[in-house]
């Protein structure tokens, strides 16, 4: 009996030693990320969505289909980005592992009752969601903004305060001095398109002006949509 008691005590002691001296667990899930700032949108960027909260626009396509679109009010969202300063110690489970900036996003959606098509304007920082680690020497306030035009998931980008599109969204943007669409001449037109070579039907390019917003868009099969009065 004395032997069994000693054996049990010995096993307990070994277990206790194993628990207390095992390798430290480094688990990211225990970390608490710390917000170190807000990468605010530039004040002047708001004018790139030239609409009130509840506006109406009309479009007609090259086959004669007419649709009225209604905006549903400005919406705001934010996401974590620009991560830096990862804490590798991971000793204290309450210690911060990542420092990040909050990135605000402002957007306005237009929906139609006659077609399942959504026109969305979105302003956010000119950076990629995928690779958004920020070197310590860069101030996020100096980053430019972009306008992202989103038609049913087809994204086209217009950089604001910059010539470069750093969003990772693949497209080309050019400025056209004047453009005639459906017998209306527009000036200083932003044309954002993707060079899709396909016989498939997809949304290819979008035309935009600062005072009217989206003035037209077109598909790979040459179907065109025009802003109508």
């Amino acid at each position, binding site marked *: *009996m004395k032997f*069994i008691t000693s054996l049990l005590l010995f096993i307990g002691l070994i277990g206790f030693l194993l628990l207390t001296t095992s390798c430290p667990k480094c688990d990211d899930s225990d970390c608490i990320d710390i917000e170190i700032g807000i990468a605010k949108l530039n004040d002047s960027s708001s004018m790139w969505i030239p609409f009130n909260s509840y506006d109406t626009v009309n479009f007609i*396509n090259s*086959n*004669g*289909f007419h649709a009225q679109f209604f905006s549903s009010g400005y919406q705001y969202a934010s996401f974590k980005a620009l991560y830096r300063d990862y804490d590798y110690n991971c000793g204290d489970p309450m210690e911060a592992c990542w420092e990040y900036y909050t990135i605000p996003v402002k957007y306005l959606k237009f929906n139609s*009752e*006659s*077609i*399942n*098509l959504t026109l969305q304007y979105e302003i956010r920082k000119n950076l990629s969601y995928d690779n958004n680690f920020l070197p310590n020497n860069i101030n996020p306030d100096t980053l430019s903004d972009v306008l992202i035009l989103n038609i*049913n998931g*087809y994204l086209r980008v217009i950089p604001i305060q910059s010539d470069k599109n750093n969003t990772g969204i693949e497209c080309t943007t050019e400025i056209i001095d004047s453009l005639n669409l459906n017998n209306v001449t527009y000036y200083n037109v932003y044309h954002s398109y993707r060079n899709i070579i396909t016989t*498939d*039907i*997809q*949304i290819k390019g979008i035309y935009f002006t600062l005072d009217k917003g989206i003035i037209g868009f077109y*598909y790979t*099969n040459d*179907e065109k949509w025009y802003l109508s009065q």
Partner: protein
Amino acid sequence: MVFKSIKYFIKLMLLFLIITHVFSCRKKSVCEHQNVQLNLESPYNNWYSNLSSNNVDGNYFSIISNSGLTDAFRYEKHSGYISDFHVRDFFQNDDPCTTWEFAYIYLTYYSNIYKFLIDLRVLQMNDGVHLQINDYGSPKYGYIFMDYNITNNTESNIIYSENGKETSTYKISVDIINEITSNNITYYNVYKITNNLSLNEGSSFDITIIYIDKDNGMIKFEQKNGTIWDIAV
């Protein structure tokens, strides 16, 4: 004292082993497990034969609406067997000794622009051949499931998701249309499937009617707002 405990423990273990053995033997004698594989009976094993199963990027159809809209349907075709576990929503397996594998031919369609997402399945089950439609692109319900037993000519109640999976009081209606034209091609003996849930309670973009040709799959469909889409098969 210690030896007495060990002997007692061994006796208990032996008793446990004998009992578990007896029960496992009884189970074996009652239930001999079998796996039943059902092949699609003719002519259903040849459905959708005009569509390629080579699922590459190039598989698509243009679709054109009567109101002047265009889009493209990408499609994939698969065939194989599905286990009864995966069709438990509509198949009750009352025999615990039998597992079933049902042959199917599956077509999935998804549109590039206007977010239609539909699949059609012809499925051999033990009570006959079923034609099933999943509409994953319903703006109102998100997901709608329709089932028609071709062999017995019976339409099931429509299943849809609103707060979880719900069974509607509406059934689908199935008619065979002798002759119908889509994109300037005439098809014969086409299945017209009417989704009475969407027809009565859906939103304007919900699909209400689908036309299925046995060789070419979906050839035409209609939305509640009256838009009719021809598929350029």
